[in-house]
């Protein structure tokens, strides 16, 4: 019998608790399993939240390598601290809080060093996004520059904001989180979030006035 035939005749093994079946579980169940040391359950949690955590850290640092390191550290720290998670807030909020604090600490330590951009490329959909199309097709100085240059100007302006103001803009205007959730993540009240957002937008409008109407 050839190896291929032998393999075909073997009974199919259905994984009992592999990542495929774990993917159907809700978040509290996955968290409970991960708290018991189930790394496969934690793997599912990582895959669910990695993009948003990475995006937040990346927008704060404007550096892909730093964002990759901090995202990795955030999940490792979350796993090590998972037994202390009591479920007072959602896992998402708790995880975000770790990521935000880690990022703020990183930026505080790096405050005296010059900032180094390492921007990610824009995806293919950027040129077809209605907002972006409207942005570059109007009669403004923006017409003269391409999207990559606009991206660099935008990131440079964002980095001129203080860390907390930048974080609020990222979480609200880019990530689309509600004020209350941001307040939970940043450990402040929603009034503070609103006032920080208002001030940050004013500053950004002043910094990017050449590219706005």
């Amino acid at each position, binding site marked *: 019998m050839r190896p291929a035939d032998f393999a075909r005749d073997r009974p199919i093994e259905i994984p009992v608790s592999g990542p495929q079946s774990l993917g159907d579980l809700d978040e509290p169940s996955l968290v409970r399993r991960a708290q018991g040391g189930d*790394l496969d359950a*934690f*793997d599912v949690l*990582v*895959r669910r939240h*990695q*993009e948003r955590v*990475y995006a937040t850290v*990346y*927008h704060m640092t404007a550096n*892909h390598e730093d*964002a*990759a390191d901090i*995202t*990795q*550290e955030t*999940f*490792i*720290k979350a*796993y*090590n601290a998972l037994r202390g998670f009591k479920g007072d807030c959602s896992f998402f909020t708790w995880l975000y809080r770790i990521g935000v*604090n*880690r990022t703020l*600490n*990183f930026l505080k330590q790096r405050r005296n060093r010059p900032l180094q951009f390492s*921007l*990610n*490329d*824009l*995806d293919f*959909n*950027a040129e077809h*996004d209605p*907002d*972006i199309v*409207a*942005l570059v097709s109007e009669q403004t100085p923006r017409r003269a520059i391409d*999207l990559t240059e*606009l*991206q660099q100007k*935008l*990131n440079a302006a964002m980095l001129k904001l203080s860390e907390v103001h930048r974080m609020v*803009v*990222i979480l609200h*205007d*880019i990530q689309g989180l509600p004020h209350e959730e941001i307040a939970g993540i940043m450990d402040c009240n929603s009034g503070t979030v609103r006032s920080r957002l208002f001030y940050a*937008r004013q500053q*950004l*409008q002043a910094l*990017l006035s050449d*590219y*706005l*109407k």
Partner: protein
Amino acid sequence: MERPPDPSRDLLQLLSLKRHEMPPPGFFKRLPNRILVNIRAGCEVSDLTWWNRLWEFLVREPIAASSYAALAMGTALFAVSVFRTAVEPEGPSALAWQDTSATVHSPAEAPATASLPQGMIYLTTLPVGYQRVRPDPFSAAGAARFYNVGLDTPQTHAETVPTHLAR
């Protein structure tokens, strides 16, 4: 009626550009594996300063903390004793520190063997020869010494001398 344009609308459009910044292809496939490998390897992440780490260690290990505290206290006491010996090597200085009943003696009560300069008083009850003295501000001679008046040394505090002594 047309609503006035929202000033932040353009800004929000501009910010939407950030949503299209994507990491290199395959990054989100590799990241979970890197995380799990590090967790399995027992990797720990700490963002504490050395002072916070030391404090956490002391709180976590009370026996070690007590030992370090005892060691620090012993070192401090040893340093103080060495310092005092160096300052007054021949005098029974320890007695002066322990003598809580020290009283001020007038010259009349002082031992006869003590040759106390005029206008000086005893500060302690230490044995003769080790007394500490200072000018008696309530006698004329003592006040003169106290205010540095009538001595051979230059008068550096003449402006502080009371008028009845300056005469």
